[in-house]
C-alpha cells in the first residue's frame, strides 16, 4: 500500500526507470521476508500438508519461474544484483518447510488506504483530488502530502500510458506467486480497440497473472458539442 505516495515523496516519476528499479527492490524484500516468515511458521505450527513434492520443497521460488520479458525490464546486475541471500533461504525452506502453499498477492486496499491516509496499493492516484464513493457516501480525498513539490510526481492514472502500469505490474509479478489487483484506466478519447488489445496482450506477454477493473469515463457533453458549428455556416465561403 502507498506505492504512489512513496514515489511522489521521493520525486520519482510514475513509470520511469527509477520507479521500476525501486519496486523491483521492494518486491524482492517483500517476497524474501514473506517466504522466510512462512517458513518460520512451518517450524512453529508445521508444514502445509502438500509441502513435500511442491516447488517450494525443490527450491523453486516465484522469481525462478518469472516471465522472461518481465525479467528484461530491470537489470540490477543479474545473480549479483539481489539484495537478499536467496540461496540460503532456499536451503532453509527445503529443511524447515513452508506453512503456506500459496503466499503472496496484492490486494486493492481502496478503502483502507484512505482510512490510514496513503494511496491505494500499487496504483497511481485516481486523480489529485477526487470523491471516493462507497457505502458511507462520497468522501473527498486528496493525494497525501500534495504540495507544489509533489504535484508533478502525482500523475493521475488516466494520464499515464497504461502499458506502463502493465510493465510495473510485470516487475512486481516476478516476485509473487499470486495475482495483483491491477486496474486499467482509460479516457474516452483513447478508448480504441487497438490500445485495449495492446494493453491486455502486453499483460499476457509480460506474465501478469491478473488485471482487475477497467475504469472508464462518462462522456463530457461540453467537450463533444462545444465549438461545433453548423456545417452550413462553416462552408459559407466555399458555396
Amino acid at each position, binding site marked *: 500500500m502507498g506505492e504512489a505516495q512513496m514515489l511522489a515523496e521521493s520525486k520519482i516519476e510514475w513509470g520511469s526507470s527509477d520507479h521500476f528499479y525501486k519496486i523491483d527492490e521492494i518486491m524482492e524484500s517483500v517476497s524474501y521476508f514473506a517466504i522466510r516468515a512462512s517458513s518460520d511458521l512451518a517450524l512453529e505450527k508445521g508444514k502445509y500438508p502438500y509441502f513435500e513434492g511442491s516447488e517450494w520443497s525443490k527450491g523453486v521460488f516465484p522469481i525462478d519461474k518469472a516471465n522472461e520479458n518481465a525479467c528484461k525490464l530491470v537489470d540490477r546486475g543479474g545473480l549479483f544484483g539481489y539484495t537478499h541471500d536467496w540461496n540460503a533461504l532456499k536451503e532453509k525452506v527445503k529443511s524447515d518447510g513452508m506453512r503456506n502453499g500459496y503466499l503472496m498477492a496484492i490486494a486493492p486496499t481502496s478503502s483502507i488506504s484512505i482510512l490510514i491516509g496513503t494511496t491505494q496499493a500499487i496504483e497511481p492516484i485516481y486523480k489529485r483530488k477526487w470523491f471516493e464513493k462507497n457505502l458511507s457516501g462520497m468522501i473527498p480525498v486528496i493525494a497525501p502530502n500534495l504540495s507544489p513539490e509533489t504535484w508533478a510526481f502525482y500523475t493521475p492514472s488516466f494520464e499515464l500510458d497504461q502499458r506502463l502500469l502493465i510493465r510495473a505490474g510485470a516487475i512486481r509479478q516476478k516476485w509473487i506467486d499470486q495475482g495483483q489487483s491491477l486496474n486499467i484506466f482509460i479516457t474516452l478519447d483513447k478508448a480504441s480497440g487497438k490500445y485495449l488489445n495492446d494493453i491486455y496482450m502486453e499483460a499476457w506477454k509480460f506474465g501478469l497473472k491478473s488485471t482487475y477493473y477497467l475504469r472508464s469515463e462518462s462522456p463530457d457533453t461540453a467537450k463533444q*458539442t462545444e465549438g*461545433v458549428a453548423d456545417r452550413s455556416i462553416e462552408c459559407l465561403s466555399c458555396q
Partner: protein
Amino acid sequence: MERKKIYNPNSDEQTRDRKIFGGNPTGIFELNDIKYQWAYNLWEVMLNNTWFPKEVDMTRDVSDYKQLTDSEKTAYDKVLAQLIFMDSLQTNNLIDNVNPFITSPEINLILVRQAFEEALHSQSYAVMVDSISTNSAEIYELWRRDMMLKHKNDAIAQVYDELSDNPTEQNIVKAMFANQILEGIYFYSGFTYIYTLARSGKMLGSADMIRFIQRDEVTHLVLFQNMINSTKKERPELFTKELLDEVYEMFRNAVKLESEWGKYITGGQILGLTNDIIEQYIQYLADERLKAVGMEKLYNVEHPIKWVDQFSKFNDQKANFFESKNTNYSLGSLDLDDF
C-alpha cells in the same frame, strides 16, 4: 405556423437549407448528410449515457428514509412530487408541442431521444417512490393538496400552453427559452436538496439516481442552448428587443418561483441549505443559462455552494464497485477502426 408534414415527397430541400423550424423537410431521416453537426454529436453522447433506473440500488434508502427528520421527509416527498410533474410534462411537451414544428431531422432525432429520457426519469421516480413509501399515491397526488406545488406546476405549464394554443415563431423561440429554464433552473433546487442529504450520508441511492438524471439533463440543456444559438443565426430578426425583454422577464419570474419553492420545501430546517444560499444559487444558475445563449447576466452573484458541482461531476468520482453504482462509463463508444 403549421405542423410539419411527416411525409412530404414534393420537397426538394437541400441539406444546407435545413432550418431549425419553418423549413420544408421531406420527412426522410437522412443522417449521412447533416447540417447541424452539434445535434448529431449530442445524439452520440445521449446514447453513450444510456442507463436504467432499476440498476440503481435503493435498498439502503428504505431504512435511511425512516431515519430522516420530519422536515427532511416532507422536503423529500415534495421534491419528488415536483420532479415527477416536470418529467411528465416534458415527455409530452417535447413530442406533442415542440417536435412537430422542428424541421431538421437531426434535431428531431435528439428531441425524440430526450423525450425517451424524460420517460426514463419518470420510471426512476416510480422506483424511488416505491422504495420509500407504502402509499405511493400520497406522493403522486401531492399536487392536488399542496398549493405551492400546484402553483409552480401551473406556472411552468403556462408557457407551453401558449405555444400549443398559438404556435407562432415567437412562441417557439419563447418555448426554447422556457425549456432552458425548466432544464437549467427548475430541476436544480430539487437536485440540490437530494445532494444535500447525500452529503451527510443519507439517501445515497436517491443521489445516484439524481446524478444519472442530471447527467441526462445536462445534454438537454445543451440541446436547447444550441437550438437557440442556431436560430439566432438563422432568424436574427426574431430576436427583437420586445422578445428579449420578455425572456429576461421569464428568467426573473423563474428565479422568484424557484427560490420560493426551494425555501418552501426546506423550510429553513435543512442543514446546509439556508434561504440565502438557495436564492443566490438559483440566481447564479439563471446567469449561467443566460450567458450560455449570449445574453446579459441579471444578478452577477457568486456560486454559493460549489460542492454541488463537484458532487455531480461524474469523472471526479471513483466508485467502489462492491458498494455503490458506478456512473463512469460510456456505452457503445469504443472505437474499433484501428483494430
